[in-house]
């Protein structure tokens, strides 16, 4: 027998009992939907350049970088902070830009993959090490891996292989280039501090 029921047309994991709603992150109910009219003036720097724009408070930093600023090196892999492909630096600290409302970076400095090499095109040693160790395949997660690798070294979390693996495990790579990524970060960390990784 068929029965007519009314359901939300949203996400297919959104079971009728609502038990899985938490997994959905961005999909609020209609009552909670914000008006599209709100705009907030936001000023920040990206790779040293000053940016000032009117932003919808719901816009993620990731979408602003990609869709408004044309900085498409930063990738969207899940939009839920689960894969790390969108990793950028905010005032030198790594963040997932998909979970960061762009208005929140007002007054702060954003660094993306486009800002890692020198202006003359000279690659950062970690980028060179990624090439030397073939630490990539399809390349889609690579910008996020590089940004996390830089932060892992700067945080002092590249002491040994296990520590590097742990601190890079927020960045998924479906091609499975993990061995190369580990080698690239290890090699670069040692170059920065020869005592690192000896044990």
């Amino acid at each position, binding site marked *: 027998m068929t029965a*007519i029921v009314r359901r939300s047309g949203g*996400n297919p994991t959104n079971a009728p009992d609502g038990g899985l709603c938490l997994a959905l992150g961005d999909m609020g109910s209609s009552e909670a939907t914000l008006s599209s009219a709100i705009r907030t003036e936001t000023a920040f720097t990206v790779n040293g350049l000053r940016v000032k724009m009117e932003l919808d408070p719901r816009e993620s930093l990731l979408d602003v970088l990609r*869709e408004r600023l044309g900085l498409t090196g930063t990738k969207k892999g899940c939009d839920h902070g689960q894969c790390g492909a969108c990793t950028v630096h905010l005032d030198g600290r790594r963040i997932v830009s998909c979970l960061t409302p762009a208005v929140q970076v007002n007054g702060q400095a954003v660094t993306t993959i486009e800002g890692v090499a020198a202006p003359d095109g000279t690659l950062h040693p970690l980028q060179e090490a990624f090439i030397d160790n073939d630490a990539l395949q399809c390349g889609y997660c690579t*910008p996020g891996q590089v940004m996390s690798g830089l932060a892992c070294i700067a945080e002092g979390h590249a002491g040994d292989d296990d520590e590097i693996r742990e601190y890079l495990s927020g960045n998924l790579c479906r091609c499975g280039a993990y061995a190369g990524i580990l080698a690239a970060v290890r090699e670069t960390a040692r170059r920065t501090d020869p005592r690192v990784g000896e044990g």
Partner: protein
Amino acid sequence: MSAPTQRVDARLKVTGAARYGADLTSPNLAHAVFAVSTIGKGRVVNVETAAAEAVPGVLMVLTRFDASDLGSPGFLMGHGYGFQSLQPLVDDRIAYRGQPIALVVADTLIAATEAANLIRADYEIEPIAVALDAEGAETLSQQEAIPLPFLADIVVGDAGAAFDASPVRIEATFDLPQQHQVPMELIGGVVGWRGDTLVVHEGTQNAGALRGGLARQLGLDPAKIEIISPYTGGGFGQKNSLQPHVGPLALASRRLGRPIKFVMPRTQTFHQASFRPASRQLVRLGADETGRLLAAVHEVDQQTSRHDLFPALYTEITSRLYGIGQFRGRHRLVRTDVQTPGFMRAPWEQAAAFAFESVVDEIAYALGQDPVALRLANDADVDPVTGQPFSSRHLAECLRRGADMFGWAGRTHEPGSMRGADGTQIGWGVASGAYPASIAPAVARLSAAADGKVTVGVDGHEMGQGIRTAIVRLISEDLSVAAEDVIVYVGDTRVAPQHLTAGSWGTATALQAVHAALRDLRKRLNVADSDPVDVEALVAATGQATVDVEATTVAPGQPPEIIEQSRAGLVSFAGPVYPGFTAFSFIAHFAEVRIEPTTRRIRVPRVVSVVDCGRVASPVTAVSQVRGGVVWGIGGALRERSEVDPRYGGFANATMEEYPIPVNADIGEVEVGFVDEPDLLLNPVGVKGLGEVSMVGVAAAIANAVFHATGRRHRRLPIRIEDVL
């Protein structure tokens, strides 16, 4: 000039400069989001769109296309183009949870998302069957349902009687789960029109099918369709065909007069694209007291959808892994209420090798024999199915070399006999794998310029496997030109037909076409095949700016006309059975597992894999590809399972958090070896396939290692903590 050793597009990828489908930006882009069905099956009675249409910035909300404007793309495996034949949004039928019910297009992604979230629908619900043994699931004999020779059950001798008469018999049934490909790049891209030409930027493994399928769906001249896909952010089978979003976007874009960007939310990729189907596998294996394998039976039930028959080919490898005289395979297809399942890396071979190689190991233990020795003693001399020779077969060498590299001689045979000081249970396991060596038709257009630069456009897609690097290496070595002077176009229908790149045939297919083009170029330049070439001087001597050649190649035994089928965007590969020989790649995996005494967590600190893939066309990228296959095998053995919801349909763990692909901390040392013997019978470059065989057998090696650690056999994947308590 030596060929490049590094990945040629690595610099673009580490700087973020490589442009993927959704990286195209333009000031007048519109953004699209689909609202999807929240029921598992039935009819959509009414879709309420008023609230969505009222959202500022929304340009259109479409709930239905005329079937005459948007036809079925046909099913990829049924002389069609789509991952499934079903095209959503053309009638009121809902075949599976997550099927699109409305398309929203807006000025911004925020507005489109907000509006899609406001779509409400009324449904008539029908009962669903989403599991193999669910009430209402319909089981068919494959060879009766699809009477094609290559899908017939493989029968050699009388395996049933031979099994019954075998002194040593093992029988086991294995349950293999649904899994999802989860490439990092989300499905989608940018669809727009340049005049009356449809232009699609999208990461794909099959630009040819996008063109052919859109031509069929929309009634367009294929010459008026361009598919541009220079970089695909991982495919693994998910992007092997036309997806159902592209046709609706093309129509919406034409109506709107603006290009549309679409990036499918991750959760929707679990429901709007293919997945690895569930399967149940019965294996019976009989041997004599010396360990000689006498008979094998391998029967598989595999899930498919109601609307398509995704075929099963599990026994293609299990009938050939060893020289077993008697073999009987059987495939049945089980119709369930899902989107059509399909190809995911080593689509059948991953599951088949897990089941079969688990039982081979069990035979070795039943006889008290070393699992490597038993495999070596049962190697095949010829293809047991056809009786014809293999083009090349070095499985024994893979096993021997792998055992050496791994230190297998240091293993003690008894289960539970190896332990760490803290009580950690240690297990060492081995398994073999094989994968068909197929080849597809291809066209290579090569242009040598007076400035010494060489440009080539060829069938093939770069999904990370390194096809571009392999092509550059071949040209660079042959013509003594620097890697940076070789420009490669792949994944682009403007330069070649762009046949599907999958099934591990990509490198062999592209390289033999480029090889033929290089031979033609040498003829045009009057240089013998083996002589050194000075491209710059020789082209300049012709008095022309460039010397252009075009070569078309097909698989051994294929008629030249097959290229027309490929030009139409249809699947056209051949193999593994060719006239006069049979071609497979082979591999041996050795795995160590450690089961932690308190948490019972299963870790894999090291794996050794030795591959027979013919000549290794690009050593650096080949090692990475094998390591990646091993990572996939670890995921398949210990992590990945898509949880079905028997009440409401769909998949319950459809996020990257809850569908756990391996992370960096899951992966230990992975050592890779190659036999590196060219297979010149298969093609003049000597290359067999690599991408998928690298995964085949990993799960079995891990499961066999878990048995060695604990004494317990495992009949389903993934093996989790609760299975080793």
